[in-house]
């Protein structure tokens, strides 16, 4: 066991945009930061997105420099492929046990050249591409992954499953592949903890009438982002999963599992109106002749520049907004086209619309791991399973445990700007805690 001690250090759990922002804020102010991420690379959900709203900037182009900065910052220690196991102590002196899962690649030796990932014979669906694309059993999740270190997927590697192959080891010029690596437990002493573990998307197959997983051309918005992305499984071509054809007509459906008291969740997922608008514009950018429809209940464009964005989508891009939540989607079994049954609630007409592709905007839901982490940190969850803040108005990033802060989507659905703002807020609150602890000790 390695014991790291540091006087004024902060643990950030979760390496998405919120965790990255909080880490950089703290590190730039001279504090030591441990950034723990459970997957092999930092980047989180934002890294999976193609563009951001309302500016239509390339998502990874904004995020990647920040990711690299995290990696290079002298004050930040990246602990990727790691999980928080146990937390004890209190504000100013938390002791955190962290499990570093074995990558079976020596982090100090791997140069990220990628030879192993090219030659590995095992092809598996890529988690980063929401299972639409492939990766190898030794892999880097995406081209801009940070750190640029390969990871072996033990469950699918031929050496681990059948004791054969070892091609990666033979080809690695840096001699970094180490099949003997064991999980490593480290203990960190930190003054404050920031939780930024993000969210999951509801599996929309619970809204049975929309046919997700039954109909090939019904996809989720996150799947759409990967299809639209140049480094995604189709090289940036938004195509139908049934036949690879570029769709002429695409429909987006809002509030799939959000804002209901029955199936799904009762809250508004807050980002869908905007990202659906963005994705609709992306389709128009790719294929200007295509027709795009957005089925909504209410358009919630509450951020700065958001309403303008929707107006532009309507006027400049010709995106058709239809007020009404479809009651049923049927698939034409021969063409795999989809027929949407919807009431246009403004004109009170019930119409059928035949489209080539349907994109569902599922509810943001809490991560399943929240429960365990909340027990470890002794912080509360709200009625839905998100982390609960002390006071949503006056202490939005504080928890019931002094010194533990929450930011980003782990405490509720929100967009990127809000997540970043909360992250900076959480970093500032952590600095306060450290200063107070230092003063107390000085007295």
């Amino acid at each position, binding site marked *: 066991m390695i014991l790291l001690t540091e006087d004024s250090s902060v643990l950030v759990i979760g390496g998405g945009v919120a965790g990255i922002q909080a880490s950089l804020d703290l590190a730039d102010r001279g504090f030591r930061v441990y950034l723990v991420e459970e997957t092999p690379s930092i980047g989180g959900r934002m890294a999976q997105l193609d563009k951001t709203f309302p500016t239509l900037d390339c998502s990874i182009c904004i995020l990647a420099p920040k990711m690299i900065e995290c990696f290079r910052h002298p004050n930040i220690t990246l602990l990727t492929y790691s999980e928080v196991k146990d937390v004890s102590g209190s504000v100013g002196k938390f002791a955190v046990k962290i499990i570093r899962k074995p990558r079976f690649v020596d982090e100090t030796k791997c140069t990220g050249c990628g030879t192993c990932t090219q030659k590995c014979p095992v092809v598996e669906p890529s988690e980063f591409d929401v299972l639409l694309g492939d990766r190898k059993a030794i892999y880097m999740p995406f081209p801009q992954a940070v750190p640029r270190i390969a990871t072996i997927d033990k469950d699918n590697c031929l050496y681990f499953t059948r004791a054969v192959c070892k091609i990666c080891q033979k080809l690695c010029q840096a001699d970094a592949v180490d099949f003997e690596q064991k999980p490593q437990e480290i203990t960190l002493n930190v003054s404050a903890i920031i939780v930024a573990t993000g969210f999951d998307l509801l599996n929309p197959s619970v809204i049975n009438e929309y046919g997700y997983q039954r109909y090939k051309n019904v996809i989720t918005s996150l799947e759409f982002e990967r299809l639209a992305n140049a480094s995604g499984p189709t090289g940036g071509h938004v195509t139908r999963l049934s036949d690879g054809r570029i769709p002429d007509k695409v429909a987006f459906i809002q509030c799939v599992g959000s804002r*209901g008291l029955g199936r799904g969740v009762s809250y508004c997922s807050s980002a869908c109106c905007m990202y659906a608008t963005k994705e609709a514009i992306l389709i128009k950018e790719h294929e200007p002749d295509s027709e795009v429809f957005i089925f909504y209940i209410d358009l919630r464009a509450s951020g700065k520049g958001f309403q303008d964005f929707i107006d532009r989508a309507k006027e400049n891009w010709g995106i058709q907004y239809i007020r009404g939540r479809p009651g049923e989607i049927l698939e034409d079994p*021969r063409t795999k086209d989809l027929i949407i049954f*919807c009431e246009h609630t403004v004109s009170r007409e019930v119409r059928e619309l035949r489209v080539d592709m349907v994109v569902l905007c599922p509810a943001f839901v809490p991560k399943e791991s929240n429960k365990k982490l909340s027990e470890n940190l002794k912080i509360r969850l709200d009625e839905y399973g998100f982390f609960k803040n002390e006071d949503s108005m006056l202490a939005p990033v504080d928890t019931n445990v002094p010194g533990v802060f929450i930011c980003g989507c782990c405490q509720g659905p929100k967009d990127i700007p809000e997540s970043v703002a909360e992250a900076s807020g959480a970093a500032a609150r952590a600095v306060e805690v450290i200063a107070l602890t230092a003063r107390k000790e000085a007295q």
Partner: protein
Amino acid sequence: MSSKIGRFPSGNPRTIKIQKELSKRSLDAEKLVYCYECGTCTAACPVVKVFPRHYNPRVFFEKASLDLEKVLTEAGLWLCAICYRCHKRCPHGLKLPEIFLSLREVAVEQGYLPDVPSKLEEILTILREEFPFPLVYSWLCLRPCEEESKRSKLDNLVLDVLQRSLADYKKKEVAPLPKVHREKLAIIGSGPAGLTAAWELVRMGFQVTIFEALPEPGGMLRVGIPEYRLPKEVLDVEIEYIRDLGVEIRTNTTIGKDLTFNSLLKEYKAIFIATGAHRSRTLHVEGEDIEGVVHALDLLHQANLQKRPRPGEKVGVVGGGNTAMDAARTALRLGAKEVNILYRRSREEMPANPLEVEEAERDGIKIHFLLTPRKILGKNKQVVAMECIRMRLGPPDESGRRRPIPIEGSEFTIELDTTILAIGESPDVSFLPEEVELTEQNTIVVDPLTLETSMSGVFAGGDVVSGPATVIEAIAAGKTAALSIDRYLREGGV
């Protein structure tokens, strides 16, 4: 919440009275404030497809909050078929059908509708414009109570009107409609989908022949729906009317046995397949073939043919759909002493119409959840007991409902002398040529908008496409098919 009672306007003492009445009927009144008017209910509603001008549940519900008294006098209030499709899809699970049912009763009981009979006549006229069995439909959807002593004021008024209408029908002389087209059309199956399509097509001037395998026409309306919900006399009269209009119905004619599908293709310009879903699914457990195990459809069929099958004293019904409810209630009426329904998921996942469930329970039928049979035990080749296992619910399966998982070691035995299996029905499509494409569930693949199958000129609709569904959905399919066939014949394409 009770002070607000949803979204209905307050102030007017009469309105307040209605509000109280509604909340007394425990209609999740506090949920009503959450309606976002998303339109899911209307988009999913099969009644809207048939009566687009008269009915829109969302608008109707919305109007109820603006001018409740006016709504009580509108025709739309009487059109809801109580199929619960809206409830299943509503983000908030609002029970619109029950709200409309209550509003109907309130309208009558509180005197908002002084002349109920003429209102009901008006409804029958609206129904008659769209399909040929307004009385059957009204009997099923207005649901007059079978037992005289339990009938409400509304039930009595409804029955009066329906019976008077029935008598008028019998007296009416109907002349056959002129045949303006030469084309002959075949319809396989004389259930609600087939009859509706035949009626539409005969009115367009086509020569229509319906082929029915059973001795009498009506399909599920005749053999699937119990007598206590629909007197057979009503069905007979309305089918007679369709016949009088010039539709030929050939009963006792099974396609694939008495006639081949290919011979139909030669003689008829277009074919509509509306054979329904009459094949009972099996449980695949030990002991399913012993004496005392019956399929729900067989029981209903026999009971409907007045054969009075004799179920035992202690009956167990396996399943949670409408057929299970019908079979259980029929068994009770045939003399069973105790009827238990076993369903493998919980009440929430039950596919049966909640109102049917409620009525079954009111009849004294007990419903046991999270149970499934493992083995049917017999003695001297007669059912004596059933071994069951308890279930728990796992994550949702592809139907969107939570998947039941057996709890090993929780087996127990229930004593009974009759087991009725009501675990779903599927279509029998063995008579179809290979060119007609089928799904994995053995239903027919059709274009959802035109109902054309993979074979040109052959259309299909109703349960044979959707799997077991409701009468109103079959009616909607029959109407769509008729329009598509007309377009196909006149324009050579759909």
